């Protein structure tokens, strides 16, 4: 009744579990070398592989409670890994823990509610409508999934972690693993548990969240001066595409979202790995100090180019095809979503041009040699995967993603191969060209590669928004903490009032009576005699009444 230890091996969960395993293996290999210098590397690796165990457990679980069990255990390993980062990294660790901890509690409520509504906790048997209480449960579960995936309202810990946490962590968790698990659960919830229809408010909500995540995260990414911070913002914005895709609740959108999930995992982890290589060899990830690494680190540069192109959605690479599907779905549901998605990819392209130009091209004032082969191997493998998934995209779509939705949902037509809607392809090409122009204009205007996005940065309206964003005004975590402290003070006030009631109020009342009685005992005998007489009369009266 409460907890059966049941697993389920269907098409979707096996796929996710295997990809988790592959990524952990590759990045694990990378991490062995990267963490050699760090004194807590042993501890880090323990958390690293424990994390993989829990992730696979969560994905394969068929019982919602079991899923929650593994899901929240990830919290511990994540907290451990960030703590290892450095002396000051505990602040981010705690920030991440609190954000994801709180959203997991919401998810716990969601799961309890769904279980109660559906009568059982086994996921395969649950189907609940999103009306009334079900809707509330859906939102709760959605919050859990989005937080894990790193979507907008719950993303603020990822940029901080970029600077504090060790890089392999950034590559694995925000880079690949979280997206996989988060979107996996989101799909389970929206397709299997709640079966949201395209017209329903739930899908609209998801699409809005996706769109918002895309645009704001990429705008923030544009102005970043640090290699890893820029990548972390992009990790957040890419999630927006997946959420948008699944949010459309159309087969094309969902296929697009899932395909984008895999692609993102690939190129995002590859970018992080290149960032790691740069950091290890060049000693810093600050773009202003970097430059001209292309010739010193050719393999890293090559992988970076492949990954950058695929993330920007340049045709032959995998990013392009999954984005096209998402665009198709988004356009069908509403042009505004499509416009946001396209704008998103415009800025993504612009920022990666800036990053590539600043980091790899231009003069090199630092002498750095190529990263050791064990670090290069995973990068090359993942880059190759990016290319394969792009060019030969029927393999991932038809054989892996399509069966997930089951044949009836696909209404017959095939999504793999070249995108059907030519208009979208045209638009994407125009946007990419625009991005290159903007980059060239930016570089010429500011004179150096790093300033490519300054003209956007210091535009009148944008300038004040950026400053406030930098100072974490909009960060829900800070707002939440202030709110919590204010609420705590009020509640502490209540507690002190109750304490005052005991310590001061009742004591004073009682002592008032006591002093009254003591004053009454004036000591002279006549009062006592009078009392006795009055008392006897009272007794007589009481008896006779």
């Amino acid at each position, binding site marked *: 009744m409460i907890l059966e230890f049941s697993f389920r091996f269907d098409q979707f969960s096996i796929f996710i579990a295997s990809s988790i395993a592959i990524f952990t293996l590759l990045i694990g290999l990378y991490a062995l070398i990267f963490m050699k210098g760090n004194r807590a590397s042993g501890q880090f690796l323990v958390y690293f592989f424990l994390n993989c165990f829990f992730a696979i457990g969560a994905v394969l679980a068929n019982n919602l409670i079991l899923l929650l069990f593994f899901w929240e255990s990830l919290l511990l390993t994540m907290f451990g890994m960030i703590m290892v980062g450095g002396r000051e990294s505990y602040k981010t660790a705690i920030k991440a823990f609190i954000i994801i901890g709180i959203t997991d509690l919401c998810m716990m409520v969601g799961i309890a509610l769904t279980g109660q509504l559906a009568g059982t906790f086994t996921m395969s048997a649950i189907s609940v409508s999103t009306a009334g209480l079900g809707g509330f449960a859906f939102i709760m579960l959605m919050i859990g999934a989005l937080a894990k995936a790193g979507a907008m309202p719950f993303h603020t810990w990822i940029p901080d972690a970029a600077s504090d946490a060790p890089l392999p962590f950034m590559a694995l968790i925000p880079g690949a693993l979280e997206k996989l698990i988060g979107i996996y659960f989101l799909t389970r919830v929206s397709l299997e548990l709640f079966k949201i229809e395209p017209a329903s408010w739930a899908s609209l909500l998801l699409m809005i969240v996706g769109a918002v995540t895309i645009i704001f995260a990429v705008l923030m990414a544009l102005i970043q001066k640090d290699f890893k911070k820029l990548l972390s913002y992009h990790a957040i914005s890419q999630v927006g595409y997946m959420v948008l895709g699944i949010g459309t609740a159309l087969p094309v959108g969902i296929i697009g979202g899932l395909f984008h999930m895999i692609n993102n995992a690939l190129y995002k982890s590859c970018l992080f790995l290149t960032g790691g290589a740069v950091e290890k060899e060049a000693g810093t990830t600050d773009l202003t100090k970097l430059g001209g690494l292309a010739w010193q680190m050719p393999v890293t540069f090559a992988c970076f180019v492949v990954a950058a192109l695929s993330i920007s959605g340049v045709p032959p690479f995998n990013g392009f095809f999954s984005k096209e599907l998402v665009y198709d779905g988004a356009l069908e549901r509403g042009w505004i979503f499509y416009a946001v998605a396209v704008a998103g990819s415009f800025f993504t392209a612009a920022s990666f041009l800036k990053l590539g130009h600043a980091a790899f091209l231009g003069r090199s004032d630092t002498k750095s040699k190529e990263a050791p082969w064990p670090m290069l191997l995973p990068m090359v493998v993942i880059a190759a995967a990016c290319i394969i998934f792009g060019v030969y995209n029927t393999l991932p779509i038809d054989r892996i993603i399509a069966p997930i939705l089951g044949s009836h949902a696909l209404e017959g037509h095939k999504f793999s191969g070249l995108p059907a809607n030519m208009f979208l392809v045209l638009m994407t090409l125009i946007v990419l060209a625009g991005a290159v122009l903007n980059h060239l204009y930016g570089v010429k205007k500011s004179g150096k590669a790093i300033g490519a996005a300054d003209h956007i940065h210091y535009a009148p309206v944008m300038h004040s928004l950026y400053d406030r964003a930098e100072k974490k005004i909009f960060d829900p975590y800070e707002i939440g903490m202030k709110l919590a402290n204010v609420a705590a003070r009020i509640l502490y006030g209540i507690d002190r009032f109750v304490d005052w009631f005991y310590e001061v109020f009742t004591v004073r009342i009682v002592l008032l009576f006591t002093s009254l009685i*003591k004053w009454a005992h*004036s*000591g*002279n*005998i*006549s009062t006592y*005699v*009078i009392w006795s007489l009055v008392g006897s009369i009272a007794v007589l009266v009481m008896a006779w009444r």
Partner: protein
Amino acid sequence: MVIDQLFWLFFMTFILLLIEGFYCVTVTYNLFRILIGLEVLIKAVTLFVIAAGYLSGHLALAQSIVITIIVIEVVVVVVAAGIILGFFREFDSLNVKNARRMKG
């Protein structure tokens, strides 16, 4: 009928003497006068016992009770006098204020 009238007469005297006794005890400033008051009270009660015995025909019982009362109350009054002497020895005055020192 006569018995009722007689009883009422005795009862009235008893009540009047009681009022005198209690008034004297509560109002006076002098310890000795309190004794006087007490003695008046005892006399009132003795009277009433005898009257009750007389009216109900149990005069013998009343008399024996009165004798015992007198003996015991004498001792009480003597002890009271002793106490007053004690007070006098301590404070050289019979003012009631000296007997009001224990408050609260």
